[in-house]
Structures are given as C-alpha cells and as structure tokens.
C-alpha cells in the first residue's frame, strides 16, 4: 500500500505502477459531468464567457487542483437543510463520460490524480504521461465504506448544479484506490479489453 498525500509530487506519481494499491490523504475536490463541461468551456477552451460567481470559484479551486486530485463522485449528503454537510455515501461514478474533457483539465490545472471507476481512454492516458498523473480506481458501489474516509466537508461550489454534480471540497484520510492507469503509458483497462476481445472472438467462432 503506497500512501499519498495531496498535493502529490511528480516523483511520487512516477513511482506508481498499474496494480499498486494506494491510500490518499489531504484535500480533494469532487467533479463529474457538469463540472468538467463547465471547467473546459469556461476556462480551458473559453467558448463560454464566465458568468455569476464563475471567476471567484475558479480562483478558489485552482490552488486545490494544482498538484491535486479530482474525484468522479456524486455523493449522498446529509445536512442539506442546515448546511452542516456530511457525506453518507460516496462511491465513484463511471469515468469514461469525462474522457472528452479530462486530459485538458489535467493539463490546465496541473492535476495529478483522477479518481473514478471503469477507467478512461487514450486522451487521458496521454495526459497521465505528460502532466504526469495517474488514474486511480475506487471500488464502484462501495459508497458507505468510502464515505468513512471523508473526514470533513470543507465546502461546496456550484450547488446549483444539483447535489450529485456540485464541486464538493473534501478532507480525506486513507482514501482507498488502485492505480489502473499510470504515467508510463500503461492501462489495465486497455489490457483487459484486449484480452476479453480475444476471448469473445473465440466464443463467437465456436
């Protein structure tokens, strides 16, 4: 088990290999479909001009993402009525939907770790080599278990995106995951896909 603390130095990223179990501690951000679309359109490609509190939030999240981690997660949150937020269930969502955006977000913010489930594609793998960064696979559906590693909800941005889509700022301790895409061009997902394709072809021919 490799312990990582956020911000994660390049040296630690380069040491990580596909298959390594890791545990993360520090401050991370959740972000999924709406957040990635918003970040890329407003600040990376600038096809949409900043509106409302966009600039303010950008300044707030920039230092958190620099050397940091983003978690593809739409949590169940208690305390919505009082503002004393608590994560009760917080497993990963399917990451591949962020494939059009993720590489650009990693480059723009110097983001080191992307956490989710199901793996990502060639664009993200290329960014992992370049930035450098890693893709960390959390256990899909293990939401109550993972929520135990969220020690504190420090804040939330863009709650108007809805609870699942908002950017939650979290303090985590020993957050468990497995490296499935590393900074050396290896992807467990590409490997399993190729193997299962060969197995499927054999079955279809039979």
């Amino acid at each position, binding site marked *: 088990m490799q312990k990582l603390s956020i911000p994660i130095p390049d040296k630690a990223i380069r040491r990580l290999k596909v*298959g390594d*179990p890791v545990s993360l501690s520090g401050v991370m951000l959740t972000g999924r479909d*709406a957040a990635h679309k918003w970040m890329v359109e407003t600040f990376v490609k600038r096809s949409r001009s900043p509106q409302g509190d966009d600039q303010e939030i950008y300044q707030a999240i920039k230092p958190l993402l620099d050397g940091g981690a983003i978690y593809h*997660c*739409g*949590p*169940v*949150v*208690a305390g919505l009525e009082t503002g004393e937020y608590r994560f*009760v*269930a*917080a*497993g990963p*969502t*399917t990451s*591949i939907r962020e494939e059009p955006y993720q590489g650009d977000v990693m480059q723009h913010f110097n983001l080191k770790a992307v956490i989710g*489930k*199901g*793996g990502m594609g060639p664009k993200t793998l290329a960014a992992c080599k370049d930035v450098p960064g890693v893709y960390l*696979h959390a*256990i*899909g*559906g*293990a*939401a*109550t*278990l*993972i*929520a*135990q590693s969220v020690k504190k909800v420090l804040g939330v941005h863009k709650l108007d*995106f*809805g*609870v*699942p*889509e908002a950017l939650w700022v979290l303090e985590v301790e020993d957050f*468990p995951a*497995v490296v*499935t895409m590393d900074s050396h061009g290896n992807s*467990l*997902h590409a*490997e*399993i*896909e190729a*193997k*299962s*394709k060969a*197995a*499927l072809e054999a*079955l*279809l021919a039979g």
Partner: protein
Amino acid sequence: MRDHTADFLELVRLAATDLPPDVEASLVAAREREAPGSAARGAMDSILKNVAMARQKGTPICQDTGTPIFYVRHPEGWSTRKLRQQIRAAVAEATRLAYLRPNAVDSLSGKNSGNNLGDQAFPTVHFEEVEGDKLVVDLLLKGGGCENVGAQYALPNAALGAGRDLGGVRKVVLDAVYKAQGKGCAPGVLGVAIGGDRGSSYYGSKEALFRKMDDPHPDPQLAELEGRLMTEANQLGIGPMGFGGETTVLGVKLQSMHRLPASYFVSVSYMCWAHRRRRMIAGSEHLVYQ
C-alpha cells in the same frame, strides 16, 4: 385501502441500505473464486465490507440510488392515483432522510428537482390489478452506470454472425457483456428479454431482474442457455470492477416475449453487483418485507 406511505418508505430504506440475502450469498461465492491477493479479490472484499457496513449504519449501499422502479400489484377496486401519491410522498421523504440521492434531473433546464420527483415516469410506477386481497410491491433501485451499458440488438446481426434463434441470442448477450467491460460495476446480473417491441422488450429485461439469483428458468431450453451464458460470460475474464478475474456476471435471467414476424429484438439490462431489489407484501393484518 389504508395509507401505505410509511410502508413504502420502509421498502425504499430497505432496498437502498440492505442487499437481499440471495444477492449477498452470490457475492460471497464470487469472492471465494478470486485468487487471494489479486485486485479482484480485494474488490470483492471491499464490496462485502461495504454491504455489511451499509446494513449496520442504515446508509445507502451505493450513492447512486438510481431510478426507483416500482411494480405494484393491487386488489380490485384500489385507487392507483392514491397509491402513486403515497409512493411519491415516500420517495421524497426517503430523499430527505438521505436514503436516496436526489436524482431527478429536468432534461431541458438541467435542474435537479432535489426530491427525486420528476414527471409521471420518475419514479417509475407500474400498476396491475390482481386477484386476492394483498398488495404486493416490488422495487428495484437501478443506478445510472449500469443502465448506461444496457443494449438492444435487432436480429439478425451480421457483424456478430447472430441469427434469429437462441444461438444468435447467445452471441449478442456475450457482445453486450464484452462492451460493458467493468463500467456497469461488474460482477453484474443480466436481465435479457427475447422478443417484444423496442419498448416492451426493455421493460421485459428489467422484469427478469426481479427473479431470485438461484431460480432457474422453468423452460428447460432457457434454463440451459442461462447456465451457458453465465459460464461463457465469465470466460471473458473481465472480472470484478473490470480488474480481470473469474466472475464477470453473478447471474443471467432470460425472458421470452411474443414479437412481430418482422422483428426479433434482444434487450439486455445490466444490473450492477448492488442488485437492490426488495418486495413488500401487505395483507389486511400482515406486512412482510422480502
């Protein structure tokens, strides 16, 4: 009929926080098949730890509490309008209590309603009048990750060499499992409908998911195909979470439906390992949850 709102709330709580015993047993068996020290074994360990912890704490097994899909079988003369109102009230209350995540998003504005109530189809409620005096309600909480990897095929399918027979059904189901990889939170359960039109076929595939894990199909031909598909899907080696391993699917449930002469649809609904289905049976004096 009396007010069943509180009973429906308990049904939702149970479905979201406590996996049915037959599903949990199949997960335990799957763990034992994975090599000690492998990533697949580690994933199964975490899954089972999470299931036990969610039950004990009364918190959701998975944060994606999905689309609540209700099948309501009611005695003659009951008001389906009132039953729907009570179900909607229970769903909103379950959301307030954090048993459910607010999941109903308006497709045009992008706004989340905040209480899991959308149009008539969210939550989904199917009604059927039955004989007798009992109310029987089945609930499935189906998350978006696994719903997204569902697939529908029109046979024949030349690319897969799949004809209009059970051999063709076998080929397209294996293709669907391959395409899903680990993205539907493997190991999953497959609900497969053979026949119907595009709409009824997908409904049929979801209805098949209400069968118990250890319940083979009464038709020997389909029972045999269910067994074969399970063995062969597991030979793909995708494994828990797509990490590679012995168990890619926990079960396969087939359902045959009538079709038009021109159409031969095969619809596959993929249910993640967190197969959250529960049943409530309410008689005049008894209330049972399964």
